[in-house]
């Protein structure tokens, strides 16, 4: 899987819940918080991005659904 696809795949998974616009904005915002751009998300910094996304997702959809979504992202990006 190419590096660029990782950020897109995360946005794609989030878009099921947050819609494509907010999903893209969330990946951009939280990638920025770990010092990367959306395009710079790789398998190496994906765990950091997942950790950064967790509090946002917990607020938006709740703790258990968030863990399910983040687990799916981690699994499908492998």
């Amino acid at each position, binding site marked *: 899987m190419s590096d660029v696809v990782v950020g897109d795949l995360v946005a794609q998974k989030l878009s099921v819940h*947050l*819609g494509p616009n907010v999903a893209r904005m969330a990946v951009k915002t939280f990638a920025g918080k770990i010092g990367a751009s959306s395009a710079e998300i790789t398998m190496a910094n994906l765990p950091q991005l997942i950790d950064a996304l967790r509090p*946002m997702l*917990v607020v*938006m959809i*709740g*703790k258990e659904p*968030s863990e*399910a979504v983040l687990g799916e992202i981690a699994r499908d990006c492998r």
Partner: protein
Amino acid sequence: MSFRHVAIGAAAAVILFAILDSILFAAMGTDARPIYNGLARVSMLAIVAAAAGLAASRFGWWSEYVGRAWTLFFAAYAVLTIGEVLKRFVTGASLASEICVVAANIALVGAYIMTARSFHAAGLDFGASRARTVLASLVSFAIALALCYDSISSAWASLVSGNLAPGPLISPIADVVTFALVAPLLLTAFALRGGQQFWMFALLTTGTIGWMVNQGSGTIVRIAGGSSEAIRAGRMTGFAMACFFIALTQWLAADRAVRGAHANV
């Protein structure tokens, strides 16, 4: 079944209720009407309280952000249900009913503020320009004020003339706040379009618009020259719309929490 189908079903249920309510109310005797009104309102409020309690319990009550908003909705609707029972069916309980109305409105304002601030709390923004956000907020505040102006002014006049009942004044003031929060709710729903969360915010916003219909029916029908029956029908339709859609939002949220994030409904 998709969220869209559930929303269409809820709208159909509100229309059906409005038709049946008008037919039933017209057919029953004047003695039965207050009892019918009371039972209908108490039942609908109790359904929202039960759905809010279910959602709050599924989201850990006060332990997480979503749960806190649902907990406040639960508290508000449970207390509103008790207040409605006291007002309609218990004589000499007007003070207790007033206290319930005030407490419920405070909880409801808290619930709406938490829900409307979800994006901010999550570290996101609407993606809309500041001018658009401010304009939407001003428009919803103006509509809220117009809908509640009659109630506020008459309650204020009653208060200054010596009738020290705060409920009739606090309730429409709280309504202004919750109705004004329709703007951020709508902006949030608009930003989330294409995702499942869109439906949560859209259904909750529709329910809140139901409260606006309930509150504004008197003024609008009076301006249009409608009868008192038309005012009652408008209020009851708004009441049903609010209760059906808000209960549906809470039920869907609770269902998603149990069945997993990918449950369609």
